[in-house]
């Protein structure tokens, strides 16, 4: 009768070790793809928390952008490039903004939740594209980061340092979210999606629960954006804040599936590989391939890539 053993933590730990070891031998281009994938995965992890509650945000590029621009501005204006400072600062900015906007957005559901998130993100986009000091549509570059005071001279070294740091951050974030999902509050997702009245009558505030999830997702998206800015050494509104990026984040969330905290990482890598190869082979049709993939997932694989893996490895999906 007892649920099968939860393999998430050992699985993540094995994954971490494999990724760390592989980091030493992986080619540069692959490290690049992994860095970008993992930074997106962090934002997707936050969206997954919301999605389990039935909420889809079409504006999380807002927090992605806030995180990215925080890192970039710290570097540009204050000359701060220490990852241990810039990345927490980005998370702080994103979660603070999320905390205040959360008081408004927690009253909304369904399409209204999606539209209000979209409006917030487009406000930021509207400001950024018209702000000369921040490079308008071109954006500006982010200085080479340092970690614990050590800055790498070579771009390649820099990449691998970032990769190791990112593996650590991703592991930590996944563990924390996993722990959260096992708590009563984390478990309220399906309950809220199914029946808000009952949750209230059991004595818990739905608004409060959604607010917590929203701030978490904002912090994670801010974290992801910060790392994306560092890996690309560049920020600009169209690849970080525009609505198409929010759409992309939702897409990867669906592609990954809600089954496990590991799913966003796998899903992001799959997405980045599809995109990279599609762009290489058919530069004018990569969006077509991405779009078709998304449709295929919606129709044939509603549990995302994770459910496919779970099926292959013979485990029941999520054991819910």
């Amino acid at each position, binding site marked *: 009768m007892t649920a099968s053993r939860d393999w998430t933590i050992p699985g993540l730990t094995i994954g971490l070790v494999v990724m760390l070891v592989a980091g030493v031998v992986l080619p540069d281009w692959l490290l690049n793809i992994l860095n970008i994938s993992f930074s997106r995965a962090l934002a997707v992890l936050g969206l997954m928390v919301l999605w389990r509650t039935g909420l889809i945000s079409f504006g999380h590029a807002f927090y992605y952008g806030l995180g990215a621009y925080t890192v970039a501005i710290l570097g540009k204006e204050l000359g701060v490039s220490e990852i241990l400072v810039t990345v927490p600062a980005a998370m702080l900015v994103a979660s603070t903004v999320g905390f205040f906007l959360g008081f408004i957005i927690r009253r909304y559901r*369904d399409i209204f939740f999606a539209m209000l998130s979209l409006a917030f993100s487009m406000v930021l986009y509207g400001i950024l594209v018209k702000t000369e000091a921040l490079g308008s549509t071109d954006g500006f570059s982010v200085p080479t980061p340092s970690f614990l005071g050590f800055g790498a001279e070579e771009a390649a070294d820099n990449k691998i340092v970032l990769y190791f740091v990112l593996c650590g951050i991703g592991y930590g974030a996944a563990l924390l979210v996993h722990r959260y999902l096992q708590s009563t509050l984390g478990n309220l997702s399906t309950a809220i999606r199914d029946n808000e009245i009952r949750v209230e009558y059991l004595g818990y505030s739905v608004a409060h629960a959604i607010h917590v999830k929203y701030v978490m997702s904002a912090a994670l998206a801010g974290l992801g954006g910060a790392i994306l800015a560092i890996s690309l050494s560049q920020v600009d509104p169209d690849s970080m804040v525009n609505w198409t990026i929010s759409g992309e984040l939702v897409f990867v969330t669906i592609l990954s599936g809600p089954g496990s905290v590991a799913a966003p990482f796998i899903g992001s890598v799959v997405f980045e590989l599809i995109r990279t190869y599609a762009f290489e082979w058919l530069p004018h*049709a990569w969006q077509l391939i991405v779009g078709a993939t998304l*449709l295929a997932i919606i129709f044939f694989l509603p549990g995302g890539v994770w459910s496919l893996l779970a099926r292959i490895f013979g485990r029941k999906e999520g054991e819910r």
Partner: protein
Amino acid sequence: MDLLITILLDGLEFSSYLFIVAVGLTLIFGVMKILNVAHGSFYAWGAYAAAYLIGVVSNHGFTDLATMAMIPVAAIGVGVVLGAIIERTLLRHMYHLDEVIIVLATFATFLILEDTILLVFGVDPYFAYQPMAALGNVEIGGIGRLVYGLSMILLALAVAVSLWFALNRTRWGRLLKAVIHDREMASYLGINVSRVYIVTFVIGAMLGALGGAYVAPTVSVAPGFGVEVIVLSFAVVVIGGMGSIPGALIGAMVVGMARAIAVHQFPELELFVVYAVMAVVLVFRPEGLFAPAKARKI
């Protein structure tokens, strides 16, 4: 004074094309409860088709004025072909899904259609100035304006009046209203909901394409043409009230005017102001300015 007239006319012209596009979006949402991201692609397809056809007929020696006929041809062609294909092959298999998932599916459709444009029309921009040249200039209060731009206001009015007439004075309009009101009840009453859906979707798509086709002569039609217009139309529709046709008119006026004022007075706020209005409306009146406030059903 000159500035005021310029702002007013710029605002009206901008509102007009926004209305034409957004009313298609809101019609589809009102009837089918689908927020169609691919609407931006209908707009882009309409623009490309019009620009391409205008170029072709112009090369065959037709007068500049005659090339204007290609605008409705493009709009109707795109609306019927793309609209029917997407509704029949895709949307009708998803009506049982969650509405936000359907939005995502239309986002996928948008991505696919964006690249289809590149594959069909190539990556180079198109210029189709002929209709604009044919209509020339006119002086209003001492300011020279393009007649073509002003004609957009007339077109928007014509669209608004025909839709009003179609909805309120025809049998089709009554059917549509019945479906909007209660889809299940309508099907019990023997209304062919499936046919209402495809007709609505095709008309909505035509309106989106018409907006693009009419704008095409005034700009260079280049890749990414539909990306901005779709969020602008979302803003219009949200401000006016999703699914409300008079709301689309109000929303288009608000967005068009706000943007025209910003462009001339506070250029750095041009986009900010549109989305700020959208956010403020959602915060204080989530049903939009025009839709009657409904109690949230729980």
